[in-house]
C-alpha cells in the first residue's frame, strides 16, 4: 500500500491566513446569535475544521469567507436544536448569575451588574440587531466592512445600526439604565 498523493490545493499556510483574516467575524456572527463567547469560539473553530476537511477532500470552495459564515450560521442554528440536551433541564441563562466565591472590588461588581443587565436587554433584541452591534462595537468594523459581511449596502448598515441602537436605548431607558431626552 502506498499513500495517496496529496491533492493540489490550499495548504496549511492558506488555512492559517484565512483563520487570521476571518475568524473574528465568524465568531462575531455566532456570538450575536447566542451571546455566549465560548459557544461562539467552539462553533467558529468547528466551521474552520469543516473548511479544512473540505479542502482535504478536494472540494472546491470559491468564496471561503462566505462559506465559513454560512456554515457557522447553520452550526449556530443546529446548536439551538441540541441546546436542551447540552444544558439539561437548566436553561443556560440561569448560569449567568453564578459567581465565584472570591469577593470582587466594588467597581468590578458595578460593571458586572451593568453588563449583566445590558446582556439581558441585548438578548431580547432580534439576532440581526445583535449581529450589527457585535460587528460594530466588538470588532470595531466600519460601515463598509459590515456591509461586506452582511451583504447589504453601507446605507442600510447605517440605518440598521441606528435602529438597533434606538431599540436598545428604549429598553435600557425602560430599565432606568439610560436617559433619553
Amino acid at each position, binding site marked *: *500500500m*502506498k*499513500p*495517496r498523493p*496529496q491533492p493540489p490545493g490550499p*495548504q*496549511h499556510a492558506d*488555512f*492559517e491566513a484565512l*483563520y487570521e483574516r476571518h*475568524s*473574528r467575524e465568524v*465568531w462575531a456572527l455566532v*456570538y450575536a446569535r447566542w451571546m455566549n*463567547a465560548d459557544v461562539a*469560539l467552539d462553533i467558529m*473553530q468547528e466551521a*474552520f*475544521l469543516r473548511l*479544512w476537511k473540505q479542502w*482535504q477532500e478536494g472540494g472546491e470552495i470559491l468564496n471561503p469567507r462566505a462559506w465559513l459564515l454560512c456554515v457557522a450560521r447553520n452550526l449556530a442554528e443546529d446548536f439551538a436544536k441540541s441546546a436542551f440536551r447540552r444544558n439539561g433541564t437548566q436553561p443556560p441563562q440561569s448560569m449567568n448569575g453564578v459567581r465565584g466565591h472570591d469577593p470582587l472590588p466594588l467597581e468590578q461588581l458595578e460593571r458586572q451588574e*451593568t*453588563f449583566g443587565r*445590558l*446582556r439581558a436587554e441585548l438578548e431580547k433584541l432580534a439576532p440581526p440587531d445583535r449581529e450589527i*452591534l*457585535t460587528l*460594530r*462595537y*466588538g*470588532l*470595531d468594523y*466600519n*460601515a463598509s466592512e459590515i456591509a461586506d459581511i452582511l451583504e447589504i449596502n453601507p446605507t442600510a448598515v*447605517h440605518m440598521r*445600526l*441606528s435602529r438597533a*441602537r434606538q431599540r*436598545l*436605548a428604549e429598553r*435600557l*431607558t425602560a430599565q*432606568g*439604565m*439610560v*436617559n*433619553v*431626552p
Partner: protein
Amino acid sequence: MIDLRTSPTFGPSGDELDGMLRSFFRAEVPDPWPTMKAPPAVVKFQKPRRSTWLRIGPRLAIAASVGLLLVGYLALGSIFPKHEPNGGINGPTIGKNNPPRRVHTPGGREAFMWEEKTPGDRPTIIIQLQEIKGPSNR
C-alpha cells in the same frame, strides 16, 4: 444614567451608550485571540489496484466449471441412454385399457393378453389371457 442626546453612529465621539456597548462587547471578545493550526493531513492509504485478469479470473473459473459440468452431463447421457422398463413411455402401463397383445405362455403356446379396469371409486384391474387357437396349436 447615560445621556443619549446626541449619538452619531459612526462619529468620532460616541456617547455613553456607545462607550458602554464598546466596553461590553470588547470584554466579550476573547483576549488573546486563540490561534488555530490546520490539523495534520490524514494520509489515506489505498489498496494496490489488481490487474484485470486477477479481478475477473475467479469469475471465469466458476463459469468454466459450470460449463464443464453441463457438457459432462450431456456426454454421459448420450453414452448411457436411459433404460425404461416395459418399453419406456410407449410401453403398456398397468391401469390403462391397453389393446390386446400377443404373448407366449410358459407352456409355449400363443395367447392374447390385455387389461381391463372396472369402473367405480375403487377400480379393479383384471388381466385377461385368451389362448389363440390356430393351426400351430393343434
